């Protein structure tokens, strides 16, 4: 059973979206406010989220930041839906901040259904792939990383990374183009080591950047929040 969450304050739109994507093996749950949705995450993380970018009270962009900053929802497939006239920048930056696909209202019903289906299928393929990949190699631009042997090659030369730098790099690459908070990095890379502070994160990012030379500029600082590997 797949759970699809719809976060939409207009009840008619929520009903329409729900009826378009419900079906066998799918359970659709709707939330009219971000608060209610975020509270629900304590009990269950859905398999998919349709997110209205025009919620009252919290902007879709801020909510995306929150969701992507939380390790439990950082990989949640999200289709953002935006509606108002002035939002050209909202749509593209919604993708930058971590939505996986987007639609403008008014949307074609069938297109909505197909985008949801495609994104669901894509995310299932991706999680299957990451489970079966044993000797996984990550290739990003001039960077080649062999996860098994923990070898990092940048433009055909080996880069000598300390274990924490390696873990940090892998984590950022896997979450590329998603903004990650320092706190999230502490939890996932430093495994919540209580002795470490966010200062340790900043220092390690600096070291990693300098070891990666020019390529290190892909790791961008997002002031007040954390870092993003931009590609």
């Amino acid at each position, binding site marked *: 059973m797949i759970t699809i969450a719809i976060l939409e304050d207009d009840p008619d739109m929520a009903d329409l979206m729900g009826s378009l994507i419900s079906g066998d093996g799918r359970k659709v749950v709707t939330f009219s406010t971000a608060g209610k949705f975020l509270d629900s995450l304590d009990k269950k993380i859905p398999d998919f989220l349709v997110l209205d970018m025009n919620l009252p009270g919290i902007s879709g962009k801020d909510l995306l930041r929150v969701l992507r900053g939380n390790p439990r929802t950082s990989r949640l497939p999200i289709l953002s839906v935006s509606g108002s006239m002035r939002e050209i920048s909202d749509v*593209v930056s919604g*993708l930058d901040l971590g939505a996986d696909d987007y639609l403008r209202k008014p949307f074609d019903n069938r297109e909505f259904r197909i985008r949801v289906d495609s994104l669901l299928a894509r995310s299932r393929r991706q999680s299957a792939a990451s489970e079966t990949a044993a000797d996984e190699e990550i290739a990003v631009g001039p960077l080649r990383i062999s996860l098994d042997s923990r070898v990092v090659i940048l433009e055909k030369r080996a880069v000598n990374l300390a274990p924490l730098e390696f873990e940090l790099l892998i984590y950022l690459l896997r979450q590329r183009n998603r903004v990650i908070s320092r706190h999230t990095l502490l939890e996932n890379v430093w495994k919540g080591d209580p002795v470490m502070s966010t200062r340790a994160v900043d220092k390690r990012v600096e070291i990693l950047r300098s070891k990666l030379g020019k390529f290190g500029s892909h790791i961008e600082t997002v002031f007040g929040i954390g870092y993003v590997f931009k*590609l």
Partner: protein
Amino acid sequence: MKSNKRILVIEDEADYRSIVSQLLEKEGFAAVSVETASEGIAELAKRIPDLIILDIGLPDASGLDVCRRLRSDPGTAGVPIILFTVRSELGQVSQALEYGATDYILKPFDIRTFVERVKAVLKSEDR
């Protein structure tokens, strides 16, 4: 905003070809348009673009077949493809996405949506 991105448009309807070229050029892209799949393949043999916009229903081939062919050719396998489709052909689109099309745009299209999707696909392919 000038860009040196080259976009190949394979679209049989003259009106759409013209609108699309104008929109792309206005955004600073260099657009080449052709009417048939075979002309498109010939263009690709000359030069590999940064993006291919491909109509799903061409007179000499289905967009699906063209997608498959482009993906199996190492020269074009890495080029992002945006499919143009109409409502009645949306069913084919999910298949095409499985075969490697990057995204799709429904005709008739909203101009902003068209420009946004083109930019979003190009941006995500940028290294």
